[in-house]
């Protein structure tokens, strides 16, 4: 076991939590990510492998599904797989081992920072941040959008619980934008 200590995208040892009004903003660092893209002509095999791995069919376009292993759609025949880091730090390697030439797998765990917003009044926050129609979210939506000039994924895990995945290097700016919008809206 290696002895290097990780830091969070915001540059600290511990994940940050902010609460303002009805909304709690939490830096989430305990999830592993891997991208999966079906190889040409192997789309059905990829779906079968992922179904086996996730225990459910990988989600349709613009959707998120599954727990504790989660997948969200990122493009035609492409998904991002989420898993608990504690048990799946080798997520990409595990998936790659199952691929057998049917799909391309790339580790994405540290490519993203993730901030979860929970509580009431999230649409009021997100309407100040991005073009996504979060007021119509009912849970299970997964969208690519731009927040503060940054390409982000917006994942609605349930009503009142939305994850924002953004570029890790810009975590500070993204966190600031989210917190500013929360304070503006509430």
């Amino acid at each position: 076991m290696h002895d290097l200590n990780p830091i969070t995208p915001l540059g600290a040892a511990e994940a940050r939590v902010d609460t303002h009004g009805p909304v709690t903003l939490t830096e989430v660092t305990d999830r592993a990510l891997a991208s999966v893209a079906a190889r040409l002509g192997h789309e059905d095999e990829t779906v079968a492998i992922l179904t086996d791995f996730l225990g459910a069919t990988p989600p349709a376009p613009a959707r998120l599904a599954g727990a504790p292993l989660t997948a969200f759609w990122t493009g035609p025949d492409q998904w991002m797989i989420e898993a608990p880091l504690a048990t799946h730090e080798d997520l990409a390697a595990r998936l790659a081992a199952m691929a057998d030439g049917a799909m391309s797998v790339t580790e994405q765990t540290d490519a993203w920072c993730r901030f979860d917003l929970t509580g009431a009044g999230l649409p009021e926050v997100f309407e100040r941040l991005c073009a996504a129609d979060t007021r119509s979210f009912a849970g299970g939506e997964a969208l690519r959008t731009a927040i503060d000039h940054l390409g982000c994924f917006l994942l609605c895990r349930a009503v009142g619980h939305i994850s924002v995945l953004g570029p890790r290097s810009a975590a500070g700016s993204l966190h600031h934008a989210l917190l500013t919008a929360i304070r503006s809206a509430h």
Partner: protein
Amino acid sequence: MTQRNRLQGGLIDRSKTISFRFDDRWMKGHPGDTLASALLANGVRLMGRSFKYHRPRGPLSAGSEEPNAIVALRTGARQEPNTRATTAELFDGLTAQSQNRWPSLAFDALSINDRLSSFFAAGFYYKTFMWPAAFWEKLYEPMIRRAAGLGALSLQPDPDSYDKGYLHCDVLIIGAGPAGLAAALTAGEAGLRVILADEDPLPGGRLNAERLEMGQQASHAWAAETTAWLAAMPNVRLMMRTTVTGAFDHGVYGALERVSDHLPVPPEGKPRQILWRIYSARAILAAGATERPIVFENNDRPGIMLAGALRAYANRWAATPAKEIAVFTNNDDGHRTASDLAAKGVTVAAVIDTRTDAPKSARYEVVAGGTVTGTSGRLGLKRIEVTDARGQSRRIDCGALGVSGGWNPNVSLTCHQRGRPEWDANIHAFVPGGTLPEGMVVAGAAEGAFSTHAALHAGARVAAAIAADLGKTPPSPDLPQAEDAPVSLTPFWHVAGTTRAWVDQQNDVTAKDIRLAHQENFTSVEHLKRYTTLGMATDQGKTSNMAGLAIMAEVAGKSIPEVGTTMFRPPYTPTAIGAFAGRSRGTEFRPVRKTPSHVWAAEQGATFVEVGMWLRAQWFARPGESHWRETVNREVLQTRNSVGICDVTTLGKIDVQGSDAAAFMNMMYCNGFAKLPVGKTRYGLMLREDGIAMDDGTAARFAEDHYVVTTTTANAVPVYRHMEFVRQCLFPDMDVQLISTTEAWAQFAVAGPNSRKLLQKIVDADHDISNEAFPFMACAEITVCGGLRARLFRISFSGEMAFEIAVPTRYGDALMRRMMAAGEEFGVVPYGTEALGVMRIEKGHAAGNELNGTITALNLGMGRMVSKKKDAIGSKLSEREGLNEEDALKLVGFKPVDAQDTVPAGAHLMTRGTPVDAAHDQGYVTSACYSPNLGHHIGIGFLKSGDARMGEVLRLVSPLTGVDHEVEVVSPHFIDPEGDRLRA
């Protein structure tokens, strides 16, 4: 001062009295007042000075169309010029200053311009200030700008913040008057997602300004009741203080919400305004209509205003500009003003109606077939001159004159997609016409249906149609009985024979100016606008354009529709630049990207530099170092002599996988990649389609079907985008998958003769990184520090034996600390981008300065890398004759003949003895630095036939910076040209 012109009634909150200041006078008003209504109630009619002639002016309107009553609101950094007093909501402590006057509003020295008006006709400055030409910029324009103009900026940073936001709805209803409210009620009850937006804080539109009955209640009460009903619907969003400013493509509308403008200071964390982008499936324009004035002699005195405004001030704000008023009208609506004011106890001196068949009244005198032919009163109206149908004139005392020339539908938003309004001869006004913005329908006064009954039913009807169209069952709202008076109007635009009759009061454009423009052949309506400035500035001619068109039509012998309108463009009303900027200002202009070692570097006191959005350590100064170059020299020398570490995470990393990955790589790079062995890295040059070099970097092959491409920092995104374009559009049949991993891996360059020794303390023992097992250009997936997955590349930008090591980003900080500790025995130094740059110039490596968008592989000395054995993006076009001339530029090095001289980048090269001009230009220096290893300045750059001119001495010139000395052409590889070090 008491509120001597305050009337009974109104929709103001009399339970509270608030104070405000205008110039140096404190006055009282009530919540619900606007600045203009409160000033009028306090007996103040004079609120500003005109743009050009500095004429005394008061409010013309009671809304956003106001041309005259514009003030500087608030003080200090929050001071905002050109704010309309007619829309500024009164709050306790409000401070406003009048504009464009000196030393005071009542006595303005520049009102001398009015006396000199004959010199200031339309276009006067085009004719007057022609010579000498140089004087225009230096003297005339600044002088004119000082003399003319509107308000002044505070020149301090805006302390408030602005949000930008996005909303979605089935139907956007623009305007909360009778049509808008009825539409919202219908659409809301049908279950549609509705946004109802209005610039006014109080929903109701004209229902709040009239003394009308709707069913069994007053019109304003019906508006309030309906609003409360709508507010209770979860699917209806009421957005008051929100102006829809523009109609854009695909049902997208821009809207400015004034969140805090009615408060002294925005609450903590809250924005002053929000600029919304509204995505709508459908839109209903129910923006109402704007009254138009009649043009007559001296029609601009304070106290002369639109009749509907006079009525609105009395009914809604319980204020009147004077106790004795008159009305000048060509339609029945003017009579409504007279009867409403009479009902409020205001004396109506007369109604002058241009129609000979004007309705009669028992309560006031009606001068049928009459006109107003003059006015008097220096700082405010005192009396008017009226000429009756028989041509006999007399004077009538009055402190205010309401003018009504009819109403113009507010068509602006219907025209933002280049739809042109059409003339409606029944109401003598332009109505929406041509192609409306996609999904928009118009209802109520905005389409020329001027009665309350017509507006209500039109709103309900179009909303029901939309509901049905969107699959909902439209309800039948219970609409109240309301007035349904027909439009009774005889067109009358201006009184003949005037000399000083204002058409556009904001720009001081007179009827005479329009005639002059026509005389000088500015006959197109767009030329008329530019020549006279009619319809420009903050009000965009909302009250003036029609009269201007009518006079133009008359002098041109055309009809008004033949003259046509100018183009309506967003924004509908003035919008602060701050609202467009939103939160993107100052240090938050763009997001900041930080490297994995940023926290550590900051602890070391690093100086950071912006590289795109990245912050990179530029150098790491130590105590006692007095100059950045001292620091950089140390970092360079220590790296070359022992070992240095640099965070290179910012370089783009693209994961390329798939069974066709090798073929794809061969297509992307001009040199071959298909035969690159697994476990090896290769330098690659990527060309644009036109054969110009796009980017360079290394690509590593981790498996037969897996490459990792490295790009320059600046081109990380463009290269990824380019590769996706090639994959998706040019070669969709290739089995290849791409994803960026730039952020996923923290990557460090470890360079110098002791780099291997350092890394051997980091890399787990089961990975042999000796030169034999891991030679130059090797790559491998390894583990470090007891099992952490990592990647190791044996590549070198510095020219030294060097490695790049990558770990998952979260461990980058810890790895940096661990490597610095492990390297202590070697005197390891961190180095920044400046030392990185020095070392790559010493080594002669090209970077962004060289890949400048004009350079080919041949220019870089890499012509032979462009493989002829395979096809690749750009390889064919790189063979173009013009890119392969005999004297083509070649990358070479330069050293000064006099070792004390610099070799500045950007300087040009001239053959000795030739003139210094573009025709004799031999090339230019692209990158330069002081080389601490060589002890003098060096440079690299492009020189015609450079590779054949080694040893030649050239003139290096930079006329801009005064550089003119000699340099010698040398190899660009100043350090270790044979590459022994990096293979060590």
